[in-house]
């Protein structure tokens, strides 16, 4: 397969989706839609995060204490809830994640 075609196709598709509503400046949304849009970030990002924690490889459930994605994810949620600070959440979460992986011998070192 021609990889350049893939790059070009992905670029066109991604831009078309992102530009879709910006391309229609005269369109204004009914109140119901505007209300729904308030839930977009919560619904979309949660739908990415939770499977990422419970099925880190995208295929197999790992509901176990040696799943660093799950344990560190829960710790990260706690950090976010208590600090409400983005840098502390990302930095702290990554730190906990790698410490856990290291302690459980899951790092390739």
């Amino acid at each position, binding site marked *: 397969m021609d990889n350049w075609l893939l790059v070009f196709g992905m670029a066109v598709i991604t831009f078309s989706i992102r530009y879709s509503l*910006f391309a229609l*400046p005269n369109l204004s949304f009914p109140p119901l839609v505007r209300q729904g849009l308030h839930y977009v970030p919560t*619904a979309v*990002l949660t*739908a990415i995060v939770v499977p990422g924690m419970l099925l880190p490889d995208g*295929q197999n459930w790992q509901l176990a204490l040696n799943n660093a994605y799950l344990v560190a*994810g829960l710790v990260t949620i706690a950090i976010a809830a208590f600090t409400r600070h983005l840098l502390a959440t*990302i930095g702290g979460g990554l730190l906990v994640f790698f410490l856990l992986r290291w302690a459980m011998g899951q790092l390739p070192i």
Partner: protein
Amino acid sequence: MTRVQEFSQGVRDMLPMLLGAMPFGIIYGSLAVAAGLSPWQTLAMSVFVFAGSAQFIAISLLSSGVGLTVLLLTTFVVNLRHALYSASLQPFVRHLPARWRMGLAFWLTDEAFAVVQHRYALADQSLNKHWYFLGAALAMYSNWLLCTVIGLVFGQSVPNLAEWGLDFAMLATFIGIVVPMLRNCPQVAAALVAAAVALACYDFPYKLGLMAAAFSGILVGVVLERRSDLPEEELA
């Protein structure tokens, strides 16, 4: 605020997001070559597509040998969420000329959306909020390109980079965005329902479970919000 102030504030507010995107960009850069892209193709994808999760999924699918149609269809579904972002921000950018709207749309990532919608939600009457958007967007873009190059150049010298689990950085970023938003019952319910549906539909083809989960969460949020509004309307 002036244009320059807005722009640099956008860059500054984006800095934590850059930390979260960095590991992801680096593994993308290092894995793309192993998946069969040439270094130029790897870089071109970051330059012209600029969509972290779609790029990552594309190279995983590429190494498992699926065809062009499936790859493009998956890109479409995975990126559909950006149409929702586009709709959310459209009321704030509709007054801008087309060249601005096209540029800002091209750079509309999850991270930029989270930071920028927060800025637009502030009540001040600044006329230069699109410069904030531009600053945030360009910070993310340059960081992404830089990390792609770092991954390309140094990825091969770090053995088993894929096994480090650097993709956790994306989860941490999204957690940092979402958790502070869960301030009322409809938002919490939207999150719980989206999570449950995403788990139930994780094996849908082309990542369609993501959109199913997103729409279920939005629906529940709206229904609960309307319900909690009802008594006030009856009083009025």
